[in-house]
């Protein structure tokens, strides 16, 4: 069946079974590989995209349910990696393996759109659905604060990147 999806500001027609998760439509039909498969049960957050601005697990969203709504993926944040959250991630040198980071960034952007000046607790709550298997959590928290222009209660954050 053909569905019209609005992804990153563009309309695209995808021919997919109604029960195909949006994740696979994005990855395998629209060739947007930034959204990642991690668990398929909504437990890891690697597949997080925005649907109508809300962070959503694309592995738990049927393509039929996504039709007609506004979808943003990691590729849609900026053309050149300059979204403030992307820049913060780069400057803090967050990733280890990097696989979960697109999902982390999408959750972080959604948080900052809602709460431009989050506390550590706001961040922990908003990011709790995103697993980082390499456990870069200290830097994720710091990068979100950096993008927001707020400060973490972790006063040793700079030293934690080896900076003098």
């Amino acid at each position, binding site marked *: 069946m053909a569905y019209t999806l609005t992804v990153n500001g563009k309309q695209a027609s995808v021919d997919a*079974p109604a029960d195909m998760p949006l994740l696979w439509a994005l990855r395998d039909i629209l060739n947007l590989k930034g959204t990642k498969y991690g668990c*398929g049960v909504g*437990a*890891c957050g690697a597949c997080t995209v925005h649907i109508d601005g809300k962070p959503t697990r694309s592995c738990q969203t049927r393509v039929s349910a996504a039709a007609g709504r506004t979808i943003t993926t990691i590729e849609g944040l900026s053309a050149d990696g300059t979204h403030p959250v992307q820049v913060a991630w780069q400057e803090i040198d967050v*990733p280890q*393996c*990097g*696989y979960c980071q697109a999902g982390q960034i999408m959750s972080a952007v959604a948080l900052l759109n809602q709460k431009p000046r989050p506390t550590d607790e706001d961040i922990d709550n908003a990011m709790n659905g995103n697993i980082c298997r390499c*456990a870069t959590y200290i830097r994720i928290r710091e990068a979100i604060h950096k993008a927001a222009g707020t400060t973490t209660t972790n006063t040793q954050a700079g030293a934690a990147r080896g900076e003098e």
Partner: protein
Amino acid sequence: MTKNLSRRSFLQISALAGGGLMIATAVDGASLGEMDALLAQAGGDFTPNAFIKITPDNLVTIIAKNPEIGQGVKTSLPMLIAEELGVEWTNVRIVQGDLDTVKYGPQNAGGSTSTPTNWEPLRRAGAAGRQMLMAAAAQTWNVPASELTTAAGRVRHTASNRSLSYGELATKAATLPAPDLRTVALKDPKDYTILGKPTHGVDVKAMTMGKPIFSIDFTLPGMLFAVFEKCPVFGGKVESANLDLIKSQPGVKHAFIVEGGSDLTGLLGGVAIVADSWWQAESARRKLVVKWNEGPTAAQSSAGFAKRALELSTQTPAFTVGKDGDPDTALKSAAKVVEGAYSYPFISHAAIEPQNCAAQWHGGKLELWSPSQTPQRGRDMLKQLFNLRDEDITHHMLQAGGGFGRRLSNDYAIEVAHISKVIGGGPVKLLWTREDDMRHDFYRPGGFHFLKGGVDAAGKITAWRGHFVSYGPMNPPANAPNTFAQSANIPNTEFPSGFVPNFAIEATLMPLGVPTGALRAPRSNAVAWVYQSFIDELANAAGKDPLQFRLDLLATPRTKPAGDGFSAERMAAVLRAVGERSGWAAQQANRRTGQQANGQTAMGIACHYSHRGYFAEVAEITLSKDNALKVNKVWVAADVGRQIINPSMAINQCQGAVMDGLSELMTQEITIEGGRAVQSNFNQYQLLRMRQSPPVIDVQFVLSDNSPTGLGEPALPPILPAVCNAIFAANGQRIRSLPLSKHGYRWA
């Protein structure tokens, strides 16, 4: 292409077709003093393992030869070359090499070996390049090379105020003789401009943009997608399956039974489904009904092993791993004797990117795109299975979404190579589901330690006797009945071996039908928890401060030389460092005088040596009355040699390893029931989340005059006993089995 090969120096210089210089070097893991012997052994064959290209546009391109699994070598190894070459990091480009051991020598990621094996050779390769560029400038200007200096990719002659860029000199340098790697001048570390400076990962920007850089992202035109359902009992076979129904499902192109063998690391029995898209293959699989022949291990269970281990603990151990003195007699005369039965479960790697691999056959030749940590081992297995030669296999190394040891195995590569062959050789991508990944892992083996220790009236350990009930293969070799299952062994050097006069490790093995393998800090991740917890029990029995007790133990004259390069002095130094940094002494004094602000806040300490690294860690916890646990802060003191190559990633690795250990400690467990793994996804197998993670992990590198060693693994082991020792300090409960969640603990 002209070649200027100095066999003696293990260095090859070539001119590039479009102008410029290519440097290749061929030393890996060996001290430079052994070069002549290596050369003789190799029959003079030149197998370089580092490639550096300098092109007229002044860019330096370095081939990254080792697999990148999140440990940061794609950045840190080129830093070694760039530093000694004397170029600006911004002008360096990194390209991932394919598997080509003829070209690059060994290509692996495992055992935290990348740093120690590449530290000398890669720096010397860079220095050789610098020396050649200086020689080219000396010729150009007709001045002695000794009057020249280099900085930021330029050679300068200060006396005449002339300078040329490396790009301008590269083509000329390619015509000059190669220097001897052993005699090239290396920089004084105080002049480093790249090493020791926090350097961002080379792929970080691509990662933040969602670029398709991972193995799972790789596709080819016309590619089909496969799923592979294996018997849930390891090594079981298909008796029958409803293939006709499966073949009629939308998009399905092929569905067939794979007979498979009995080697749990090789091709196993199952049903392959190949479709136009992965979702179609997976949808069809949900209708699959298979009648399995589950084989001889279908009755094995974690509960059964635990029961059997307890029975075995009362019997004479099957064999001795190591023994000094006479522990039994010493235990009889000890002032205090402590006994502890420790156990830990199987756990899964759970790398966030599930196993996947792509393959295509070109006639009798195989092309693979794989995230393996051991592409060479994979190639060897494929050669044997399909009767191929090295040159028949092209192996492209793709970036992996985490390894943790899981991708030391190549089962996914073998499966997809077989599937592609059966369907005629076309391009196929195999992707496992998370459930496949967790149910078909090479698990960190569980184990059981029955320990007895004695301290004398002065509080010194006089006796230690450990009966390790572990696992062996189902069919051990007839001439080696006491063969441990993979990563289920214990070395006879395990600390405090050598520091206790009467010390024995004995073992009994239970036959296991569950595949096991190395998981981040293999063996250490379990035995450090057991031994460092038990040392804490002995410290308590002796009435000693846990830190001082360890320092005293390390100061004990050794009963035998360390067989594994262990240095008591280096371990004592990191213990003292972590003690100072964490305020251990003041905290212990407050405990003794009851001046603690919060009675449920406590510290624990532990240390461990693995992968050539010395780590001591202190955890400060707050524990509620109903066992909600918060790890407030962790201090890590580490000795991994004289130079931290990239402090940014080094600290990231240590912090990640500590959290990984906390994750193992609290919740992780794979339960075996009916010969199969019970847990299959992250809702049953909980990984640490941000809210549960310690907000501060202080990492201190204690520099020592030793060659730098790796950081992927050794920061993990001490955190588990450090937290358990803190729990004991907080509430008096000694944790002797994992995970903590089984004892009613949870994250606050």
